[in-house]
C-alpha cells in the first residue's frame, strides 16, 4: 500500500433523490428479459452478449471481458440500465466487460452473497459496501426484496464513483455514497490499475498513473458518525488486495454486532485473507460450500482448496464474532 500522503480525510457525499433523467434510455429487464429503448442492432448485440455469457460460463467466463472491451471500442460511448428486480436499477457502460454478464437473466452475480442477504431481509442492519464499484450490492440491499436497508457505499475511483452516484440517485430508496478507499488507517493513497473492477491502492509505485484518493479505516466510520458503535452492520469488503489492512483498521467495528463479507480471491492459493481471519482475529469464518449449498464453518483453510476452483474468480468468506450473525449465516440457504 502506498504511504498515506496526509491524515486528512474529506468524505464526499452526494444528496439522495430520484433522478429519472439519469436513467439510460437503453434498458434491460432481467426478470422478464425485455429490452426497451434499443435499436435493432443493439437488441442483437444484447442477445449476443447474453449468449456469450452463457457460453463462456463453461470456462469461468474467461475471454468474455476481452470480447466486450474490443466491442466497446467500436461502439459510441453509451450506458445501459439493467432492472435487477422490481425496485432496483443499475446503470453501467454498454458492453462493459464485467457487468455485461447481467445481460444473461440466468447469470447470478455472487450467488452466495445474494442467498445470505436475501435471508437477512427481515432484520434491521446497515450495509457498508466497501469497494462498491458501480454499487450493485448497495442498489440491491436498499431495494424492497432485500428489505430496503440503509446502505453506505465506499468507492475511491472517480470513474466508478460517478456511476455509483448515478445509481444511488436513480433508485427509489437510494443510498449514501462516500468517495474513499479502505485501509488500516485514515490518509491518502494512490489508486492505480487499468480495469475498474481491479483498481487498487495496494501498490508501492507512487509515480504510476492513477489518482490520489482519500483512505479511511473501518473504525473511522464510527468516528465520522456514519454508524454508531452498537449498530448492527453487514460490511462487504471487496478492496482489491487490501482486505487484511481494512480488517486491521476496524477492531471496534469487528468486535461489535457485525458480519464481514470478505473477498478471498481464487488466484490466492494460500487463502491469505481467510488464514488471517482464522489466526489473527476472534471471528468465526464461514464459506458457502457449493456441495452442501449452505454456509459451512471453516476451522482451517483446507476446504477452500476445493471450493476456490477458478483462479480468475473472486470468492467470499463471511466472518463474525456475533452470535446473532452466526445464527443467520447458518440459516442461510437457497
Amino acid at each position: 500500500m502506498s504511504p498515506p500522503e496526509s491524515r486528512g480525510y474529506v468524505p464526499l457525499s452526494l444528496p439522495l433523490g430520484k433522478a429519472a433523467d439519469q436513467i439510460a434510455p437503453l434498458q434491460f429487464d432481467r426478470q422478464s428479459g425485455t429490452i426497451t429503448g434499443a435499436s435493432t442492432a443493439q437488441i442483437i448485440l444484447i442477445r449476443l452478449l447474453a449468449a456469450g455469457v452463457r457460453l463462456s460460463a463453461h470456462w469461468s467466463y474467461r475471454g468474455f471481458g476481452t470480447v466486450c472491451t474490443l466491442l466497446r471500442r467500436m461502439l459510441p460511448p453509451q450506458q445501459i440500465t439493467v432492472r435487477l428486480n422490481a425496485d432496483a436499477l443499475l446503470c453501467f457502460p454498454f458492453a462493459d466487460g464485467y457487468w455485461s454478464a447481467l445481460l444473461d437473466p440466468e447469470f447470478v452475480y455472487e450467488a452466495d452473497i445474494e442467498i445470505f442477504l436475501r435471508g437477512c431481509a427481515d432484520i434491521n442492519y446497515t450495509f457498508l459496501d466497501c469497494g462498491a464499484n458501480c454499487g450493485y450490492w448497495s442498489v440491491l440491499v436498499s431495494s424492497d426484496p432485500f428489505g430496503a436497508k440503509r446502505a453506505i457505499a465506499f468507492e475511491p475511483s472517480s470513474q466508478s464513483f460517478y456511476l455509483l452516484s448515478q445509481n444511488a440517485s436513480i433508485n427509489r430508496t437510494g443510498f449514501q455514497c462516500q468517495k474513499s478507499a479502505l485501509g488500516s488507517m485514515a490518509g491518502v493513497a494512490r489508486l492505480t490499475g487499468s480495469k475498474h473492477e481491479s483498481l487498487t491502492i495496494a501498490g508501492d509505485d507512487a509515480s504510476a498513473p492513477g489518482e490520489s484518493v482519500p483512505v479511511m479505516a473501518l473504525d473511522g466510520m464510527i468516528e465520522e458518525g456514519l454508524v454508531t458503535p452498537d449498530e448492527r452492520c453487514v460490511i462487504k469488503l471487496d478492496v482489491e488486495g487490501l482486505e487484511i489492512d481494512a480488517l486491521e483498521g476496524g477492531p471496534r467495528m469487528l468486535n461489535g454486532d457485525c458480519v464481514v463479507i470478505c473477498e478471498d480471491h481464487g488466484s490466492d492459493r494460500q487463502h491469505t485473507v481467510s488464514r488471517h481471519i482464522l489466526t489473527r482475529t476472534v471471528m468465526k469464518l464461514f464459506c458457502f460450500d457449493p456441495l452442501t449449498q449452505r454456509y459451512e464453518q471453516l476451522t482451517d483453510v483446507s476446504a477452500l482448496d476445493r471450493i476456490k476452483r477458478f483462479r480468475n474468480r473472486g470468492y467470499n468468506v463471511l466472518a463474525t464474532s456475533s452470535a446473532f450473525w452466526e445464527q443467520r449465516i447458518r440459516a442461510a440457504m437457497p
Partner: protein
Amino acid sequence: MSFTARHVECLEIVSGDIDAIADLLARGFTGRSRDYWMQGLIRQGEREVPAGYPRYGYVLKHDGKPVGVLLVLFTATDFRDKMTVRCNVASWYVDPPFRGHAPRLARSALRFEDVTYINVTPAVSTWPLVEKLGFSAYCNGLFFALPALSRTARAAEVTAVAADSAPIEGLSEGEFKLLKHHASYGCLSLVVQLPDGEVSPFILTPYRVRHGTIALPAMQMIFCRRIDDVVRCAGGIGKTLLRYAKPILVLDANGPIQGLVGYYTKARGRKYFRGPELPPLADLAETELVLYGI
C-alpha cells in the same frame, strides 16, 4: 358448569414403561406396528447414552397410564474435533383429550442448552410448530444419485465392515466403532480406500417410503465425513451398491450435488436443528432412521 381437573404428570420414561409406550405409539402412528416400536425401544434400551441425559424420552401419565410420549435419542459425538451432545427428537404423540399438555413434553426434552437438537423426520404439517420451537432447517431436500455413473474412484478398494470386523487402518477409533455398531443394526457399513491411500467411512441403510412399506432400489447415506468424500468415492460406492441391486444413493442435500449424476427434490428430506452446532449433511447416525428404520 363444572370442570374436572385432569392430573397429568410429565415424567422421564423408564424401562418399565416401554410396553405401554409401544402400545401408545402404535395407537398414535397408524401404519407402524407395535413390533416396530418395540424393536426401536429395545435398541434404545441397549445403546450408549451420555451420562446425565434421558435414555428414552418423556411420557405424560394420567392415572398412571401413558397418554403422551416424546422419544429422544441423545448421542455424544465427536464434532469437528470437539465432543458435543446431539439429540434426535423423534416420535411425538399425545392422545387428543390431553393435547393441551403436549408442550410440557417439548419443554422437558429441549431444556439442555448445550445440546444440538435435530428433527430428521418432520411431517410437513408440523413445520410451523417445529419452527416455533426455535428450530431452523439445515437440510432442505434429498438428492437421488446414480453413483455407478460417476467416473471417480472406480479403482477404489471397498470393504464392508461387519459387527465383528477387525480394526481398519485410517479410521479413528470412534469411526470404526460407529461402523461396527451400525452394521449390527443392519446397516451397510463401508470403508473406501482410494488409490492415493485415503480412507473414507460410509454407512448406508435401505431407503423405504410410505411408512417403510415400499422398498426402493435405493440406499440412504446415514454417515459420511463430508459430502465431498461421497463425490470422490462415488464410483466405488456405486459398484458396491449394484451388487446389492440398489443402484440409487439417497443423500441429504440443499441442491444438486456437483460431481454426482442424479435428481434433487425438496419434496422430501427436510431436516431441522436447534442449538450450538450446525449438523453436517448426511450424518444421521444413531438417529431414529437407524434405530427404528425408515
